């Protein structure tokens, strides 16, 4: 079969592939198709689709791109190894939600219309994911959370649950952040929260952790609106409340804005900032400016290529180099999304193969049956169970900081 003819057919068949995206990825797809067309019999290579609803066009955001790379590298490996369901390639469809829940929901609807689309990967924004929960259960489509950390994403009353997460959750993050404040010697803590489901999820987690005796005292919580321009105003409220450290629950836009605005504050008023990981989803370092390094700024992480299994890391990095021209591990932006997405794709492929069909309900069931997955971010003997759709464990959570060159490095490595 003439490969170019196949390409034309594929493009035609791809029902909702965004044209711009497609054009950008033509070389990649071309390569894949050439490869598949060479090894898979033509009647058997009907692709199995996976969707990604990401915040692509968000300003300065790197999370969606990072997740997509993780997915593509995983799919590349899977397809190279013969695909799923006896040689059917797995293929990615992406849609941009611009971090807007309404767009996310719209994207889910569109994905649901695609035949042989087995699951949708969700992006960084918890509000988007939270808003999609009703819909995915209504439509019966699996939602794989590669970043969003709001507890509600997996903690809900839908049974069977269609939401699976391999990522941090606030229930783990907030204790880690609070514990870290103790390490900083701070006993009185202020917390800055966005007025969203993510913010409320963290507030709840913090409240829950307050019940412990060893927990630092949360003197004050301040809530800011999405897109808040005056982050310093909220910081000052905490400052005047007399806190010793600030826990920042924010994404990169608000986070970098706060750091940038802290330049106007006297150095003795610059408190240690212990940040949730939303800030790592974008160009935090570039937007924060020099101020970032003058601060005691630490951020919670779940995964670092620096501490990953070297064997798997090298395998992935060689493919990243090939596919995306990423030379070093330091060059991987938003590494948590990258790692989580990569592992989720492999778990999904296992599940599809287990159930032997693209039936979404059955794929969902199969996801709870995947065993002993050795992934980039860790080893998961039972990634998902009917009781728990959270693959990541609390022990995997650690604190990191931005190195001078902007690379996120675990604090444990720094100390060495």
């Amino acid at each position, binding site marked *: 079969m003439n490969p170019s003819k196949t390409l034309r057919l594929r493009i035609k068949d791809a029902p909702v592939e965004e044209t711009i995206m497609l054009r950008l990825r033509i070389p990649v797809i071309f390569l894949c198709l050439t490869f598949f067309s060479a090894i898979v019999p033509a009647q058997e290579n009907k692709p199995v689709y996976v969707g990604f609803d990401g915040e692509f*066009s*968000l*300003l300065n955001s790197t999370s969606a791109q990072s997740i997509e790379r993780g997915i593509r590298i995983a799919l590349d490996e899977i397809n190279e190894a013969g695909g799923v369901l006896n040689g059917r390639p797995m293929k990615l469809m992406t849609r941009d939600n*611009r*971090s*807007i*829940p*309404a*767009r996310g929901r*719209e994207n889910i609807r569109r994905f649901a219309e695609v035949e042989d689309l087995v699951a949708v990967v969700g992006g960084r*924004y918890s*509000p988007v994911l*939270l*808003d999609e929960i009703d819909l995915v259960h209504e439509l019966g489509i699996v939602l794989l959370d590669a970043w969003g950390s709001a507890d509600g994403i997996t903690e809900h009353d839908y049974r069977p649950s269609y939401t699976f997460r391999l990522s941090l959750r606030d229930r783990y993050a907030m204790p880690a952040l609070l514990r870290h404040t103790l390490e900083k010697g701070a006993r009185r803590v202020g917390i800055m929260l*966005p*007025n*969203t*489901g993510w913010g*409320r999820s963290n507030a709840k987690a913090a409240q829950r952790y307050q019940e412990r005796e060893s927990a630092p005292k949360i003197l004050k919580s301040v809530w800011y*609106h*999405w*897109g*808040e*321009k005056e982050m310093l105003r909220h910081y000052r409220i905490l400052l005047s409340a007399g806190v010793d450290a600030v826990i920042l629950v924010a*994404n990169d*836009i608000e986070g970098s804005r706060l750091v940038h605005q802290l330049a106007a504050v006297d150095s003795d008023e610059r408190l240690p900032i212990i940040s949730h990981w939303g800030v790592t989803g974008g160009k935090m370092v570039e937007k924060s400016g020099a101020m970032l390094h003058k601060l005691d700024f630490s951020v919670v992480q779940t995964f670092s290529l620096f501490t990953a299994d070297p064997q798997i890391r090298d395998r992935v990095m060689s493919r990243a180099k090939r596919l995306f021209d990423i030379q070093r591990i330091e060059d991987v932006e938003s590494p948590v999304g990258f790692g989580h997405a990569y592992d989720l794709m492999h778990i999904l492929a296992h599940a599809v193969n287990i159930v032997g069909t693209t039936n979404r309900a059955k794929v969902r069931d199969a996801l709870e049956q995947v065993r002993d997955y050795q992934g980039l971010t860790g080893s998961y003997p039972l990634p998902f169970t009917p009781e728990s759709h959270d693959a990541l464990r609390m022990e995997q959570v650690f604190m990191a900081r931005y190195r001078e060159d902007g690379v996120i490095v675990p604090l444990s490595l720094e100390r060495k």
Partner: protein
Amino acid sequence: MKLAFLNTLRWKLSQKIAVGTGVLTLITVFVLGGLSYLAMRQQMNETLHAEINESVQNLAQRLDDKLAAMNSTLSSLSENTLVGNALMDSIGREIYLRSFLADFRQINDIPVTVAVTDFRGIPFSRNNERAFVVAREWLAAVVDSGERRTTIVVDHDNCYFVLAAPVISANTGQPEGVVVIQFIARELLGSPPYQPSSYSRYLEDVFTFRFIETISKQQRTKTIGRAKPNFVAVSAPVGRSGIFASNQMEILVYSNPENIPEHINRLLWVYLIAGLVSMLILIPASRVLANSLTRRLRLLEKATGGISFDTTSHNRLPVDGYDEVSHLSRTFNSMLERLESTYVAQRETGKHLKEALTSTEQAKRQAEAASQAKTEFLANMSHELRTPLNAILGFSQVLEKKCRQCPSQQENLGIVLRSSEHLLTLINNVLDMSQIEAGKITVENEVINLHELLQDVIMLIRPKLEEKGLWLQLEQDPGFEHYVRTDPGKLRQILLNLLGNAAKYTDEGGIIFRARSHEIEPDTVHLEIEIEDTGGGIAEQEQARIFEKFTQIKRNRGHNEGTGLGLSISKRYAELLGGEIGLRSELGKGSVFSLSLSVSRGEIDEVAKRADYSRVIGLAPGQAEFRILIVEDNKANRLLLRSILERIGFQVREAADGEQGLKVFFEWLPQLVLMDIRMPHMNGYEATRSIKASPAGETCKVIAVSASVFREGKERLFAAGCDDFLGKPFWESDILALLAKHLGVRYLYEGAASKKQVVLQKLEPSDLTMLSGEWRRRFHAAIEQGQMKEMESLLEEIAPHHKELSDQLRHLVSRYAFNRLLELTSEYD
């Protein structure tokens, strides 16, 4: 313009004038009415348009203000971080956004629906449950455009404004939702939509918005209210700034074209009715006017027609007024006069020729001498008879005035007066007869009160009847004409004669005096007066002779009084008046004398106006003294004149003949001389000539007093320089009238004395002669130079001596009648 067709109509002139005036009035009213109707309508429309325009501009301004308020609310909402946050926070927003939006129930008192939608236009939060009238696609298009948009939507009979502003996501910088404000357009207009004014009621409660729908880029029109009327009154741009600029929105309002003329159409009715009413009034009014004009024309026509039949008739036209018809009448009269005199002269000549042919020269000379003698005799006779009679009459009058408090004597005096008058009449009869013979009698023609005349006659005859124990019954028809035009003296004479005869020849029973009249033409009445007695009657063979002069028939016991001229004169007089006297009589059964006479009708205000000098009781105050000289040889008459004049208040001196009169004149310089003509030593003619020849006599008036009644004498008097003539016997009022006429004397009248005389008489230049020439010159100069103060002081100067004159002049000055004042003073400059 030729109105020849009017001449072809068989209408009277008055009808033509009346109808013509009516038609012209109607046309004028309609043309003027129509023009002013059109002008009013035009004006009304212009005013209306301007008013409506202003109303609409006001409306548009209010809309602008309200829309601007909406717009700013919309802006602040779309930029509000809470709204932006809500885009991200689908769970939390359920609580806070709902309560936030709930605060926007009303904007500027306009109930609004405020909602926030996602990028597909699906609302996720709103302040009420009212349905959205715009399609989701439109809202999604607003999100896509990233710009604020406005549209107007009609939904279920309501017209809505929808304003939408995209909500920009802070994190993407892209529009991710939209804030929508929706409200009913009617609320925006307010209630009432226009400022109440007298013109706003012409505006319909219908509005159309015309705008460009910026999403579809199409022109749209949306109408509020019932079916769209046809007439667009005016449009005004709305929302000229802000987000509406690209909409190029306009509001169109409508007025009801039927309502406007209704107002003015009432005017049309007013004109129509005014036209018809003025026509209805003018046609009869001009008919009356035209009648009054053509009446005289008819008379003219009648008179002209009469010439050919009776050249000697006295059909002179009444000349009253100064218009063309009067001139024509005057000319006609003078023409008639000439015609008549020519005719008489011809006849006279013919007669003389005949006489010359038929009589000898001797006979002619004798006749001439006899005629001369007769004339002389009559002249003397009249003088000799009238002079003593004058004294009787005159002193009776003086007595009557003096004894006003004793009515019984007054009655007696009245009888003396009337009897004297009758005596005078008898004398006059003889003279009259001779004048009739000589063809020298003239007929007066004036309007008289017939009723009064009858009463007078009865009053005169009553003493005689009472004396004989006869009764008199007046049977006056109720419709008996009141005022007629005739010769009162002759009519009175006729009736007195007839009644006198009846009384004379009746010994028992009485007299029935019948009077009736009937109209024979519009202005002519026929009088029928009968005097029936219960006397012996007249034999048939005597009846024809009875009217001959100097004939007295033997009746009953044979009366032998009178001249035998009475009936003859009466008959002649009746004929002169255009009537006749008839007689029905049977011996032993009484007689009926009847006077039938056609006279023209008169009006009460035509009754000859004679100043009522009988009521004079003295001189009006404020006049210079009047000096009057009486020159009279008869002592009784001199005394009579003196007593009359002194009673009134004149300064009087007397002289017994012409010589003495001149002496007194130059000594005393009177303003007026009463001059007897027949006097010893120097007669009145000579004395008058001397007075008038002197410088002092230039301003002096001379009035001749004479018993001579012949016209020749009068002419001689005027030739001698007399200014006027007083016939003997004279009445007191005659003298007073002459003095008023020549000296401008003003009198006080009985009954008016108590009242202050405030009536200002018309001043004549001669009235100022009593003031010095120097004063008049100064006053004239002051008027010319308009020096009011000077005028005032001059008037003050004369006030003590000439109060009334001063007051009259002051009155003129106060009214600035300077022309009149100059006129009064200039003649003597």
